[in-house]
């Protein structure tokens, strides 16, 4: 699984990253987490409110920090 956290790097983006890391650790799913802060790349993914989470090319949430329950659901647990 390929997880991308989109955000220029403010506190909320960091929070989203932490939640995803915790969710991955908890679910035991093999996944890579990548942080994307380049505006051009973020725009290319069709996202314009951050933080956003993209899993395997699918945008899962925009403009908010996901809850851990949501994150676990996306990982299939």
């Amino acid at each position, binding site marked *: 699984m390929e997880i991308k956290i989109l955000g*220029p790097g403010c506190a*909320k983006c960091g929070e989203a990253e932490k939640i995803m890391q915790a969710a991955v650790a908890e679910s035991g799913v093999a996944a890579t987490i990548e942080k994307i802060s380049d505006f051009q790349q973020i725009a290319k993914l069709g996202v314009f409110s*951050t933080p956003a989470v993209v899993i395997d090319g699918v945008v899962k949430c925009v403009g908010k920090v996901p809850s851990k329950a949501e994150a676990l659901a996306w990982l299939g647990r």
Partner: protein
Amino acid sequence: MQPDTLDNMPNPVATPQSAPSLAAYLLAAVAGLGLWFALYRQLHSIAEYLAFSLLTLEPGSRLGEAVLFFLYDTPKVMMLLTLIVYGVGVLRSFFTPERTRKILAGKRESVGNVLAAGLGIVTPFCSCSAVPLFIGFVTAGVPLGVTFSFLISAPMVNEIALVLLYGLLGWKVAALYLGTGLLIAMVAGWTIGRLKMERHIEDWVREMHINASDIPEQRLTWPERFAQGRTAVRDIVGRVWIFVVLGIAVGAGIHGYVPEGFMASIMGKGAWWSVPVAVLVGIPMYSNAAGIVPVVEALLGKGAALGTVLAFMMSVIALSLPEMVILRKVLKPALIAVFIGVVGSGIMLVGYLFNFII
């Protein structure tokens, strides 16, 4: 309130099945409001008791007045802040940047400017989202001037500033701030649109063709909206309380120790140059509304003119150097200069207007 516990609280997991009904929520809200008002009305007596009876300070003395100011204004402002942030949090659950973009795309300029300024207040977005949002709006066909109306109004008309002005200076000043803030956002955005500066957007943004990701729109239930209100309180109040306390402490110092009328000479009506200086000084200053308003109150109390002080406050929160640095990634310098120039002039006009009519 401990900041640590606020920051580390786990996200509330919304479970609609077990959530209480809307009626139960409304009952709790009414009861909560009643309790809130009862406590709010007692704050001054409590502060007087603490300052003069418990700490045995002399009423009317410098230290006594400064301590009373601090002990009264801190809980008052925190209570107002909590109430309004909660309300606005619930209100904002009805709006998303995606929905706002849909509303604004293809709107004619003048109507678009008015709508954008209004939506700027209620659309929730993280301040560091300004650039992605700009790209999203412009590529979706929202006119440049309309996009600017949104981006100007969002930080300028700030619910925290509004509530603090209301609590500390009364509804008239709060209404003036709301009205003129919206007006500046509309007129400045419209002006930027008239100047036809589309070619001063960075090339890569203009050449970009993006398909908005189709994220299914969530229909929220009422308990979820109330949960968003609570999250907003935890987020915002947890983040700004320290600025409020520091701001009030500075305000208390000015209140107790700066002589009456001292500000009249440098920030009073007579000093015509004070308005532009206030705007210029405000640009590099980066503070949020929560910290600046208590200082504003204290300055006004010492004879500073309302227009000058409002101009200073608007400049501090609407024009900030870090924001310009980020915007530079999508805007060429000429457009940034025009943005600062147009918004700065608008703020100055507001400053002069209030100094003139009040």
